[in-house]
């Protein structure tokens, strides 16, 4: 009896850890629930129950032995590699290839893992992405350096601002504003020609793509609360970017 209670607690702990990593790193809510249920079932838990929201996880095992855990998610970022790794681990657990102790060690390793791409590379590639989007939006090749400069600066500023203050919306607004002003400056200095295309291409790294996809996928899976709240977050982000660009435009007018 004692042993099964210990085991029950261990299973809940593994499930919640897996769910926490996924949710913190940009996994969809339905995927988090699905993964936790799969792990619990694979370890033979009776009646697993989960309730996941963007800001917290509740997980319980009911049966002869029961255990419940609640975890608050306060810090969220985007690291789809970690989501993929947890996905792989849960697949191996479901296949019966991992003992609880091994699974826990692996998950702890994923939780503490370093980002695949360091910040420097991310910045550089965000700048390159802005340059590529300039071409997609029919800008001229000669504007590319200006777009790369503006896009890189905007992305860097967003990261810096979110470290400085917990209000993400403000960071997005400031970043968009800086992008707008910089693109005017670039045109004034003769580095670029069309400030509108430069601006549009340079704000692209700020676009909440993950939120949009996750909102749609969660809504489809029937997770109405998560879907709507993520949709609202995406909308607010878009609004903040729009406001930042709007302020920049008034400076010119």
């Amino acid at each position, binding site marked *: 009896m004692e042993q099964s209670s210990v085991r029950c607690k261990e299973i809940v702990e593994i499930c919640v850890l897996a769910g926490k990593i996924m949710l913190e790193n940009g996994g*969809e809510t339905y995927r988090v629930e699905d993964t936790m249920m799969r792990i619990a079932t694979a370890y033979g838990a009776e009646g697993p129950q989960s309730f996941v929201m963007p800001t917290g996880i509740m997980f319980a095992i009911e049966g002869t032995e029961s255990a419940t855990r609640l975890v608050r998610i306060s810090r969220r970022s985007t690291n789809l590699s970690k989501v993929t790794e947890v996905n792989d681990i849960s697949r191996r657990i479901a296949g019966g290839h991992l003992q609880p102790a091994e699974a826990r060690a692996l998950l702890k390793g994923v939780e503490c893992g370093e980002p695949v791409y360091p910040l420097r590379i991310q910045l550089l590639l965000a700048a390159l992405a802005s340059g590529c989007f300039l071409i*997609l939006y029919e800008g001229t090749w000669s504007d590319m350096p200006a777009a790369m400069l503006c896009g890189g600066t905007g992305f860097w500023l967003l990261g810096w601002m979110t470290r400085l203050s917990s209000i993400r919306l403000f960071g997005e607004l400031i970043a968009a504003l800086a992008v707008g002003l910089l693109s005017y400056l670039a045109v004034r200095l003769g580095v670029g020609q069309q400030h509108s295309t430069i601006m549009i291409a340079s704000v692209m*790294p700020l676009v909440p793509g993950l939120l949009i996809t996750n909102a749609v996928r969660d809504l489809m899976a029937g997770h109405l609360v998560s879907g709507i709240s993520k949709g609202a977050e995406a909308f607010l982000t878009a609004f903040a970017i729009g406001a930042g660009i709007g302020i920049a435009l008034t400076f010119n007018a």
Partner: protein
Amino acid sequence: MIAEYLSQSIASFVGTACFGVIFQIPKRSLVHCGLAGMVGWIVYYGLIKADADPIAATWASAVLIGLIAHYLAIRFKVPVTVFSVSGIIPLVPGGMAYDAMLNVVQNDYPTAMQLGAKAFMLSGAIAVGLVFSEVINQVSKKARKRAF
């Protein structure tokens, strides 16, 4: 014409792969992610050049990206979002939203509302496209199960 399509393909491939890095997707998925984005964008670009309605073009491209993402996800056992997230980014109606904002600043609210509604519909087309690909995927999964 060919040069145009070539530069568009290269730019969309590199652009979406760069977005994959921003979202920190696994290294082995970067090339596939770029390919998904490239195919989606070229279809969109071709449709727009053929005078298709932007909403329909966005929808069709989003469906295609979703289907490719589902195929790659099953093939490489990776979450679907890894491929679909960066693929849809070029479709986001940034230019339209910019024009709407410009009209707001110039106090031309009727035009701004018009453009804003259009941008909103375009984002809706992306969402509906993703839903369609998901439904197609689910139906085909069921059909495959029944076949066995």
